C-alpha cells in the first residue's frame, strides 16, 4: 500500500489554480522530495494532505484513509514539521512536547517526551522556555515535536528554509536518521542540495503538477545528460554561444553571469576551451524543467 495516493487533484483559490490535476504516489518507507519553485503548489499539497485544505476535485488517500472524510484519523499517524516556527515560545521545551503528545493521544506521555528530547538533543534544556533557545535548537524541537508520537508518515514542509548552513546541516542529519528508521517522508523543498542529499526520489513540481519524477541520478541522466559546460564572457559572446548550442538542439540555461550548456558531451566542437565543464546536476534539471533559477 502506498503511504500517499493523490489522483487528479485540483485545488483553486479564486482565479488561481494552486494544484492542477496532481497525481502523486509515495510508497511506504521512502523519502520523496517535492522540489519546486515558490508558488509551485508544494505547500498547498501539504495542506491537502493534512486536511487543512479541501480539494475541489480528485481523490486523496493517506495511509489508507480517504481524505477529507478520514483526515483526522490519518493525521493521528502522521507527523507534520511546518515551514514556520509555531512553537509556544513562553512555554518550556518539555511542555511543548507534552502538549503534542497529548494531542496525538500518546499513551505514555513521559516516555514520548524523553525520546523526543533525545531526538532534538535538548535534554539539558528541557525546563527552558522556547524563547531562550537558539534558532537551531528551536528547529530541532519543531522536528522532534512532529515525531513525538512516532508517526508512520512525516510531512516536512520546507524544513530548512531560511536557516543558516550550520543549522541546515544539523537538520539534515536528523532527517537522515529518521530515514534510516524507515519512516516514510514527504519533504517539500526548493533547495536542490537538500533534495539531492536526502530524497530517495525527487518529484519536480511546477504550476501545480508533477512534471518529472525519479531518483536524482535518473532525472539528471534523462534531462541533463552527463556534462554541463558553463561559458563565461561578455553578453555578445554568451549570445553567440547560446545560439550555436541551441542550433544543435542543446538546452541552454542562464547560470548567474554565465550560460550553462546542458548535455555538453553531445556538443560537437561547440564548447569553448575556456568553458568550465562539470558533471550535470539536479539544478540543471530543475532550471530546465521549471524555467526558474535554483536556490
Amino acid at each position, binding site marked *: 500500500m502506498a503511504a500517499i495516493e493523490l489522483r487528479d487533484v485540483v485545488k483553486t483559490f479564486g482565479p488561481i489554480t494552486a494544484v492542477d490535476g496532481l497525481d502523486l504516489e509515495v510508497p511506504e518507507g521512502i523519502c520523496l522530495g517535492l522540489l519546486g519553485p515558490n508558488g509551485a503548489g508544494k505547500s498547498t499539497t501539504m*495542506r491537502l494532505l493534512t486536511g*487543512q485544505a479541501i480539494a475541489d476535485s480528485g481523490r486523496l488517500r493517506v495511509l489508507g484513509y480517504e481524505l477529507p472524510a478520514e483526515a483526522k484519523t490519518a493525521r*493521528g499517524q502522521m507527523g507534520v514539521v511546518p515551514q*514556520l516556527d*509555531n512553537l*509556544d515560545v513562553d512555554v518550556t521545551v518539555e511542555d511543548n512536547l507534552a502538549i*503534542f503528545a497529548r494531542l496525538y493521544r500518546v499513551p505514555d506521555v513521559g516516555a514520548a517526551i524523553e525520546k523526543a528530547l533525545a531526538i532534538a538533543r535538548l535534554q539539558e534544556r528541557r525546563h527552558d522556555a522556547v524563547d531562550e533557545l537558539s534558532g537551531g535548537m528551536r528547529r530541532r524541537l519543531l522536528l522532534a515535536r512532529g515525531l513525538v508520537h512516532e508517526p508512520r508518515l512525516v510531512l516536512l514542509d520546507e524544513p530548512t528554509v531560511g536557516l543558516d548552513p550550520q543549522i541546515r546541516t544539523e537538520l539534515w542529519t536528523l532527517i537522515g536518521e529518521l530515514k534510516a528508521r524507515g519512516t516514510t517522508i514527504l519533504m517539500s523543498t526548493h533547495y536542490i542540495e537538500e533534495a539531492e542529499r536526502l530524497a530517495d526520489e525527487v518529484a519536480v513540481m511546477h504550476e501545480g503538477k508533477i512534471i518529472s519524477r525519479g531518483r536524482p541520478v535518473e532525472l539528471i541522466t534523462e534531462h541533463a545528460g552527463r556534462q554541463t559546460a558553463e561559458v563565461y564572457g561578455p553578453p555578445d559572446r554568451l549570445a553567440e554561444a547560446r545560439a550555436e548550442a541551441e542550433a544543435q538542439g542543446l538546452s541552454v540555461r542562464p547560470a548567474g553571469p554565465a550560460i550553462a550548456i546542458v548535455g555538453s558531451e553531445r556538443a560537437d566542437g561547440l564548447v569553448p576551451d575556456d568553458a568550465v565543464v562539470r558533471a550535470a546536476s539536479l539544478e540543471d534539471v530543475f532550471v530546465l524543467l521549471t524555467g526558474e533559477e535554483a536556490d
Partner: protein
Amino acid sequence: MEAATQTAPAPRKLRRLERAAIAGVMSREVANFRTYWKGTTFSSVMEPLVYLLAFGLGLSATLVDEVNGVPYIEFVGTGMVATAVIFSSALPSMFGTFVKHRFQNTYDAILAAPVDVEELVSAEMLWIATRSGTYGCVPLLVTIAFGLDPAWGMLLTPLFCFVTALGFSGFGVAMAATVAKIDQFNYVTALFVTPLFLVAGTFFPIDGLPEWAQVAAQVNPLHQLVELVRGGAFGFEWQDTLRFAFLVAFAAITWRVAIHQMHKRLID
C-alpha cells in the same frame, strides 16, 4: 536517534468531539496560562476593587444610597460580576484567537494533529469560560468583604458565569474569525461590548431606561447574568430559570457560529 520502542495504540477511527483532543488543546492553554497567571489574577482582583471604590463607595456616599432596597455598593458589586465576565471572556477570545491564528500560527500546528476545528473551538471556549467563571466570582467576594451577606444561592455564581462566558467566548472567537485586521476589533468593542456592558443593569437599574431599551436589555446576556447573580445574593424568582435557559441558548448558538466561522477561516 533511538529506535522506536513504544508500542503505538492500534489505529482507530476518530470520532467527533473527542475528549482527548479537547483536553489536549486545553492543556496547551493551561501551560501558557502558567506563564502569565499572576498578572491576569492581579488585574482581575484590582479592577472590581477599583470599580467598587469609585462607583460603590463614591456614588453611595454622594448620590445614591440604595437601589430597590439594596445598598448601592452591593447593587454594583453583584452587577460587577457581569463586567468581569465579559472582559475576561469576549476580549481574550477575540484578541487571543486572532493572535494565535494570524501571528503565532498556533492553529496550523494544532490542526496538523488529530484535532478538528470543532474540537479546537470547543476547547478554546471551555478554557476561557472556566477562567472567566472563576474570575467572575472575584467581584462578589470583594463585595462580601465590603459587607454583602453571603447566601447559599451565591454558590451558583460560578455556573452562571461559566455559561455566560461560554457564550461570550464563542462570540469573541467568531469575531476573530470574521475580521480582516486586528484594529477592526475597535468596531466590535464599540458596537457590541460597550453597549452590552453599559445596559446590563450593573450600575443603574434597567427599569429607569426608556421602554425600548428595557426590551433590548432582555436580549442582553449580561443583563440576564446580572439578574441571576442578584437572584443568588438576594433571592431567586421563577423567571430566573428562563434567564438561565436564555444563557444556555446564547452559548449554544455562539458555539456553532464560532465553529462555522473558524472553519471558513482555517480550512482552505
